[in-house]
C-alpha cells in the first residue's frame, strides 16, 4: 500500500466514522485483568479463552452494528497490588472497560480503584464488568454505579439451592463444610439461616470451616460427617479442596450428597471424575446439557477449538450486554455505557429473560441445580473433560426464584 492510498484510506475511515456516528465499526477495548500465571493461571487462561471466543462470536461481524469487543489480556498473577498497577496501565492506554472475576480480593480492590479514578477523572469514567466475583457485599454494602456483576451472587445461589432443598423431603441432616475465608463463611451463614426459615425441620448437624488449601487429607472430615449422621453436605469448597473432599468421601464409602458451587471449574471435573458420580450437585446459571440450551453451538465450537470446557456464560453475557450498551448509548465512553447497562434486558444462556438490575448492578438470571452423573443417559448429552461424566438438570429455577433483595443505596450518575 503506497502512501497516498494509505492517507486517503485513513481520511475515508475518519469521514465514515464522523458521518455514521460512533456506532459504525466501533472498537471497544476491554482490559482482562486476571492471574494468567502462577497457581491459578490455568483458570485465568481458561477464562481468557472464554472471553476471546465470546468476543469473536458475539461482536464485530457477528453483531448487527459491527461493534467489536477487543479483549486485552493483562496478567495480574492474582495479586491485588499488581492488578491495581495494571488498572493504571489500562487507563493510561485509554481503555474504559475492565473485567475480572477470579478472587474477591482483586475485585474489591478494583471496585475501589474504579470509584476513586472516576471521581478524580470526570469524563474518563471506567466501567468494571465483574464476571465471577460473587461476594454479595459488592451489590449491597459496597455497591458501585460503575460495577456490574454478570454472575449470580452467593446469596442468590443459596436462595436457589435452599428453594430446591425445601422441596426435597429426603434431606434431613445437613452438614456445612467450607474453606475458612469470606466465601466459605458466607455459604455457612446463608445456608444455616435460609434453611432455618424454609425447612425448620432440617437439622444442621455440623457447620465446619477449615483453612483454605491447607487440608491434605479429608478422611477425618468424612469420618466426622458419618459420625454426625449427615445425609447432605453443602460446601463452598473449590479446586483441590473440593476434589480431595469428594475423593475422600468415595474412599470411605460415604453415601451422602454434596451440594457445591464450583464442581464445573476447569480441572475439577477431571479430578472428581468417577468418585463424584450421582453424589455431587452444583448450583449454577447454566450447563451444556440444559434443556433450553441457547448456547449449544458456542459450547461445541469452544470445546473443539480450545479442547477445554465452556461454562462461564457470564463472559458471553458481558460481551453481549457491552455491545448492546454501546449501540444504545451510541458511544464507547464509560458514563453513557454505564447508564445504558443499568436496567438493560437480554436473553440468557437458557434463552430466559435476564436483566442487569439498575438498583445494584446484579444480573437477574435463572439458576440450575445440576447433578454430576454418567454421560449417555437421557439429559446428559455432553461429558466433561473426558471423564465420561456430565451434568444433568435436577431443577430449573427461573430468575425470580433466585432473586434477592438488595440494600444498595447508591445514586447513579
Amino acid at each position: 500500500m503506497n502512501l497516498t492510498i494509505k492517507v486517503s484510506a485513513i481520511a475515508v475511515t475518519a469521514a465514515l466514522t464522523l458521518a455514521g456516528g460512533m456506532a459504525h465499526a466501533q472498537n471497544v477495548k476491554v482490559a482482562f485483568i486476571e492471574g494468567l500465571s502462577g497457581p491459578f493461571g490455568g483458570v485465568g487462561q481458561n477464562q481468557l479463552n472464554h472471553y476471546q471466543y465470546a468476543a469473536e462470536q458475539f461482536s464485530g461481524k457477528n453483531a448487527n452494528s459491527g461493534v467489536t469487543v477487543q479483549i486485552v489480556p493483562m496478567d495480574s498473577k492474582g495479586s491485588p497490588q499488581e492488578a491495581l498497577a495494571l488498572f493504571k496501565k489500562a487507563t493510561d492506554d485509554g481503555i474504559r472497560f475492565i473485567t475480572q472475576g477470579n478472587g474477591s480480593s482483586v475485585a474489591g480492590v478494583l471496585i475501589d480503584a474504579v470509584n476513586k479514578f472516576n471521581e478524580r477523572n470526570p469524563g474518563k469514567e471506567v466501567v468494571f464488568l465483574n464476571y465471577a466475583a460473587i461476594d454479595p457485599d459488592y451489590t449491597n454494602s459496597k455497591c458501585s454505579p460503575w460495577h456490574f456483576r454478570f454472575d449470580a451472587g452467593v446469596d442468590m445461589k443459596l436462595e436457589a439451592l435452599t428453594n430446591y432443598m425445601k422441596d426435597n423431603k429426603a434431606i434431613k441432616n445437613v452438614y456445612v463444610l467450607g474453606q475458612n475465608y469470606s466465601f466459605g463463611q458466607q455459604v455457612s451463614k446463608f445456608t444455616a439461616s435460609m434453611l432455618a426459615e424454609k425447612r425448620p425441620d432440617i437439622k444442621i448437624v455440623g457447620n465446619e470451616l477449615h483453612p483454605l488449601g491447607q487440608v491434605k487429607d479429608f478422611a477425618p472430615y468424612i469420618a466426622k460427617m458419618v459420625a454426625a449422621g449427615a445425609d447432605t453436605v453443602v460446601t463452598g469448597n473449590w479446586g483441590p479442596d473440593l476434589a480431595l473432599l469428594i475423593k475422600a468421601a468415595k474412599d470411605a464409602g460415604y453415601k451422602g450428597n454434596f451440594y457445591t458451587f464450583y464442581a464445573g471449574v476447569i480441572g475439577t471435573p477431571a479430578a472428581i471424575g468417577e468418585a463424584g458420580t450421582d453424589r455431587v450437585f452444583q448450583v449454577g446459571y447454566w450447563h451444556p446439557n440444559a434443556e433450553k440450551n441457547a448456547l449449544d453451538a458456542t459450547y461445541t465450537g469452544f470445546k473443539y477449538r480450545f479442547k477445554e470446557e465452556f461454562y462461564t456464560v457470564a463472559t458471553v453475557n458481558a460481551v453481549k450486554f457491552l455491545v448492546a450498551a454501546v449501540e444504545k448509548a451510541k458511544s464507547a465512553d464509560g458514563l453513557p455505557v454505564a447508564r445504558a447497562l443499568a436496567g438493560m434486558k437480554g436473553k440468557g444462556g437458557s434463552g430466559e429473560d435476564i436483566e442487569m438490575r439498575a438498583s445494584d448492578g446484579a444480573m437477574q438470571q435463572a439458576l440450575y441445580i445440576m447433578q454430576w452423573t454418567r454421560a449417555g443417559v437421557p439429559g446428559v448429552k455432553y461429558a466433561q473433560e473426558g471423564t465420561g461424566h456430565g451434568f444433568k438438570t435436577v431443577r430449573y429455577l427461573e430468575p425470580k426464584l433466585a432473586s434477592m433483595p438488595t440494600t444498595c443505596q447508591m445514586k447513579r450518575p
Partner: protein
Amino acid sequence: MSSILKALHFKPLDGVRIVVWSAFALILLLMPLAAQSSFALTLLCLTGIAAIACMSYNMLLGQAGMLSFGHAVYTGLGTFVAIHAMNKIVGGWWVPMWLIPLVGGFAGLAFGALLGYVTTRKAGTPFSMITLGVGELVFAAALMFPEFFGGEAGINSNRTGGSGWLKDMGLTFGPQIQVYYLIAIYLFICTAAMYAFTQTPLGRIANAVRDNAERAEFVGYDTRWVRYLIVMASSFFAGIAGGLTAINVEAATADLLHGVRSGGYLLFTFLGGVGFFFGPIIGSILLVFALVVLSEFTKAWQLYVGIIFLIMVVFAPGGFSALIMLNLRRVKYGEWRKMRWPYVGMFFFGLIALWGFAALVEMAYQIQVAAGSGTALTVARIPLDAASTSSWLIAVAVLIAGGVAFEVSRRKFQRVWNEGEEHIAEAIKKAEAAIV
C-alpha cells in the same frame, strides 16, 4: 559461614561517598520526569517500596547469613496494621498520613519481636525451615480472622483522609506523584539508616555471626540474641515498606503475607546481590521488571526467572551487583579494554543461543497454554509456527549452534578474565609492598 555471603571489599573514597549519596538523592528527585505515564509512575512507586523491602531482607541474608522464607510476614503485617491506622485517621485520629509508614514499621518491629523469638531459636538451615512454617501459619491465620484481615476481600482505606497543616497546603496524597515523593523520602532515609546500621557494632557482630558463629560465641557474644536483634531491626524496615504499600495501594489483602511473596524477596535480593549494600536495590528493579513488565511479554516468565536464578547461584553467586563491581575494578586497574571483544563475542553468541532456547520454550507454551488461539507466534519479531516441524528444527539448530559458539567464546573470555585477575592481584601486591 560461607564464602558467597562475604562482602567483596570495595572501599569508596570519602569524596566518592558524598557524590554517591547526592547522586542517589538526585535520581530519586528527578525520576518522575522520566515517567511519562501514570503506569510508569506506579512502577517507580512499586520499585521504591520493593527496594526498602529487599534491603531489609538483606539485613538478614547478606549481613547475618540468615536465609528467611517468611519475610513477607513482616511487610504484610506492617501493611495490615498501617491500613487499620489509616482508617482510624479517616475516622478522626490526629496522626498525619505521612507518618503511616512508621506505624507499619513499629508493627513490623512488634511482630519481629514476637515471631523472631521463635524463629531465631535456630540458626542456619533449620532457621530457614522454621521461617517457612511460621510464614504458612501466619498466612493461614490471616484468612481465619476476617475481623482483622478482612477475609479474602481484604481491607480498603483512603489515603486522602486525615488533617494537618501539610494537608492544608495541598499535600493530600491523592495524586500519585505525591505518593511517589513520600516513598522516595522514606527510601532515602531508610537506605541511609540501614547503611548506618551496617557500620554499628551490632551490624559488625552480625557479620561475625554470619562468618563464624562458633568463634563469635567464644568471644562472648550470644549469637541467638544477635540474630534476634537483627530480625527485629529487619522487620522494622520491612514494616515501613508495608506501611508504604498501604498508602500506595490503599488496600491490604491476605496475599501480601503469602509465601510466594517471601520467595520473591529472597529470589530478587539474591539476584541483585547480597554482598553489596546496594545489591538489593538492583534486585528490587529486577523484581518489578520481572513481575510487571516481563510477564507482559511472555507467559513463560517464571521459567526464565527460575533458570536465570539457577545460573546465577552456580556461576555468579554474588549477584548482579558483584558483576558490576568486578567490572568496575577492571576499569580501575586498566584491565577492562582487553575484555571488550571477548564480551562482545560472548554476548553475541549468548543471545543467539538464548533465541533458540526462547523459541523452544515459547512454542511449547503456545501449544500447551494457548493452542486455541492458533499456533503462530513470533520470538523477537521472527515468525514461527509451533505446529510445523521446521520451526522446531530451526530453533534446535540455532540453540545448538549458538550454544557451541557461546561455550567457545566463554572459554576464551574465562582465559582473558583470569589473566586480568592475575594482573590485578599483582598490582595490588605491588601497591601494598610500596606502602610497607
